């Protein structure tokens, strides 16, 4: 009983102005059996807000405390089911809806192949839910501020002693009476649990300026770093997604050639396939006499000619070849092609114009293939004829 006396609250404790307040009482017992006996006594005393403390689970206490087993299982079950559903949905949506791909000819929603991931996610969610539920929800941890932790018996209570702790919020609780009561249950010792104002811990540690500044600093740093990595990291080989290609693509520079141009022009005097030099350069009249249209007017020829006319000629010469093109504001007005001159020109003569251009009209030799030029001419002929049809057409 010796140590029973010296745990009484020292009368000085209120006087010295510390903000400690008594939150409960702790009785320490030396064996599980002693604890159990005491427990019965305490319950009979009418106290209701109390619990036992032990270094390891003591089986049978739930029974004495009239507690039913934990409901943690439901949490796990719900989490698991949810996970299963989420996993299946996610796999279906990603593979079959959001970005459907033909992978090895397998169906978009390959159910059997999607089972393993589903299972793993189920296990994962269930476990996490269980642990979080147990610690945070059911046990209300963390409790770094708990008065028990500051008890000088705590070490023993995590090793080889057993305790009953009574909460001061209990209606029946009174420091002296409860201490006496506990002392009477064969406790090795009884201690009144005091706790300083918990909020101070947060005020001084968490909300302190340096800590907050630290947080801000970390935030700024990490975001900047991320930005930098994304912005520049992706430009440095080999992280550049093969953007830097050693090959010399069209219109690129190349260090190999003294003038730095990767785009070379062919050697003078050489002749590429399908591009025989134009024979009548500078002599459209001779072209007019010697060149004859290799195409016969046909539906295909007309359609092709019309299409090409629409691409290359229409902007200046207009849809009806009447010189009312859409570009006439930007460029000098193109002449109508229904003029007597144009109509009397031979196909070859017109071909010459298309090939070499005349006046402001540029040469189209490198834009329109020879075939197309002839077919355009056919279409042009049709238009001319439609505009000023000879008698026999009208009958």
């Amino acid at each position, binding site marked *: 009983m010796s140590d029973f006396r010296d745990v009484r609250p020292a009368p000085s404790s209120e006087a010295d102005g510390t903000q400690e307040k008594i939150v409960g009482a702790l009785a320490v017992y030396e064996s*599980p059996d002693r604890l159990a006996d005491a427990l019965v006594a305490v319950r009979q005393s009418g106290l209701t807000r109390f*619990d036992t403390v032990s270094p390891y689970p*003591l089986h049978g206490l739930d029974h004495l405390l009239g507690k039913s087993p934990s409901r943690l299982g439901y949490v796990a079950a719900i989490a698991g089911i949810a996970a299963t559903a989420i996993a299946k949905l996610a796999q279906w949506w990603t593979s079959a809806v959001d970005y459907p791909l033909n992978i090895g000819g397998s169906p978009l929603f390959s159910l059997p192949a999607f089972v*393993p991931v589903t299972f793993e996610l189920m296990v994962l969610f269930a476990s996490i839910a269980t642990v979080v539920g147990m610690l945070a929800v*059911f046990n209300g941890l963390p409790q770094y501020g708990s008065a028990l932790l500051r008890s000088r018996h705590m070490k023993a*209570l995590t090793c*080889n002693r057993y305790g009953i702790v009574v909460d001061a919020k209990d209606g029946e609780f009174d420091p002296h009476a409860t201490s006496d009561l506990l002392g009477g249950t064969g406790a090795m010792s009884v201690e009144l649990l005091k706790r300083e104002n918990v909020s101070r811990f947060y005020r001084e540690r968490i909300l302190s300026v340096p800590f907050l500044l630290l947080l801000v600093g970390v935030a700024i740093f990490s975001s900047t770093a991320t930005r930098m990595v994304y912005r520049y990291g992706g430009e440095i080989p080999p992280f550049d997604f093969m953007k830097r290609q050693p090959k010399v693509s069209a219109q690129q520079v190349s260090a190999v050639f003294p003038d730095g141009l990767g785009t070379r022009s062919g050697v003078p005097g050489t002749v590429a396939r399908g591009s025989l030099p134009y024979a009548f350069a500078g002599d459209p009249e001779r072209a007019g006499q010697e060149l004859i249209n290799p195409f016969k007017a046909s539906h295909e020829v007309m359609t092709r000619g019309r299409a090409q006319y629409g691409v290359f000629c229409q902007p200046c010469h207009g849809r009806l070849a009447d010189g009312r093109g859409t570009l006439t504001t930007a460029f000098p007005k193109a002449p109508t092609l229904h003029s007597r001159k144009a109509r009397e020109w031979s196909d070859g003569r017109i071909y010459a114009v298309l090939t070499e251009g005349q006046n402001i009209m540029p040469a189209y030799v490198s834009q329109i293939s020879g075939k197309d030029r002839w077919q355009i001419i056919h279409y042009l002929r049709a238009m001319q004829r439609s505009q000023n049809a000879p008698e026999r057409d009208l009958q």
Partner: protein
Amino acid sequence: MKQVPSAPGHDVAFDQELLAQIDDDIAAPMRVPPGKLWWAAIAFTSSLMLLGFALMGYTAYRGIGVWGNNSPVFWAFPIVNFVFWIGIGHAGTLISAILFLFRQPWRNAIARFAEAMTIFAVMTAGLFPLIHMGRPWLAHWVFPVPNDMSLWVNFRSPLVWDVFAISTYFTVSLLFWYVGLIPDLAAMRERAVTKVHRVVYSLLSWGWTGLNRHWRHYERAYLILAGVSTPLVVSVHTIVSFDFATSVIPGWHTTILPPYFVAGAVFSGFAMVMTVLIILRRLFRIEHLITIRHLEYMNKVILATGLMVGYAYLVEMFTAWYSAEEPERFMLLNRLTGPYAWAFAVMFTCNVIVPQVHWFKKARTSLPIMFVVSILVNVGMWFERFVIIVTSLHRDFLPASWGLYAPTLVDFGILAGSFGMFFTLVLIFVRALPVISMTEVKATIPGSQMTRRRHSPSELPDVEDGIHV
């Protein structure tokens, strides 16, 4: 182990000091500064680890070409190591979860350590898929995270299954292990010698005080985790085996791989636990906690799983022969007589023949023998993976594309590095955390529970939940 003077019925009789004694023994390594031996050990292992990391960096810089991998052997050492280490991990979960469900009290002594090994092994294993990539800096692409390509992963690929399996396995093992640790951390918090210890242990123990309410939910949580871990551990190595089983390559394309892999994993895992425990119990003088009896049980498991593995080998041969598929049969022939027949020989000897000594109690209970056996089993299991991967790949369908494989020094360096990493983690663990669960040991020694059953006083007001002190 000290004799416990237990006298049922007499309630003060049992030796409370024994509990303190247990705590002291287990906590000792964390409280006394490490000795020369430990420093020497960690110096060695960590330098191995650094060597490994350096070589991994070199690989990332130069390309996979610094390894022996080639066509047709596109996978080799790194994947062998990966499967090997994942396998090692399985013992931990098996001991802590499955044996727990089977209420095997002898597990308590080794569970904590085995779980720790699981985590370290999975960490080590996890490195290999990463460094094995041709462009490791894009490793995050194997996770289904929204990205600028608005492209997802291919959920049909066993490698994606791996990603989920391994990460889940690691997370769950970690949780399981940590939950088990919390009460012990609380105990350590109270026994902390330095301030650092105190702060760290307090933070980690979440202010655990051991209220009955805590214990009630805690035990249920532990049960649930054990419950989900058991199918998990089976699924993980099954999925690892799918990497091979779902392919078309002769020697890979076989349905026996999943059970065979799981058995093999447990086999190698137990062997590794064995190897390390034998050393540990000696170093930290905890022979009375991890007794010969424990080790003998483990030897029995090793023998059993060894037989399963051996059976798998034989069945594989039979099916290859029975299939009448020329490539399958040739694969079998090539394993037995081909250029890598020696690997098969090593595998078969170490995994099937050597463990047979454990039929004899003498061998099961003799430390030197079981130590040698455990090491040989690990060698054998490493070679099993080598045989499965390299021997199957190097000669598949078209004889014209057959080739040979020869590892480079870098390959060996990285293998050594993985062992360095694993043992470095183990060495730090034994100094930082209780290698044996104080709580479980204390809770299960005779007399540590109530000896008499009492009637709960009825017609009394209920005890309210959630006291807050």
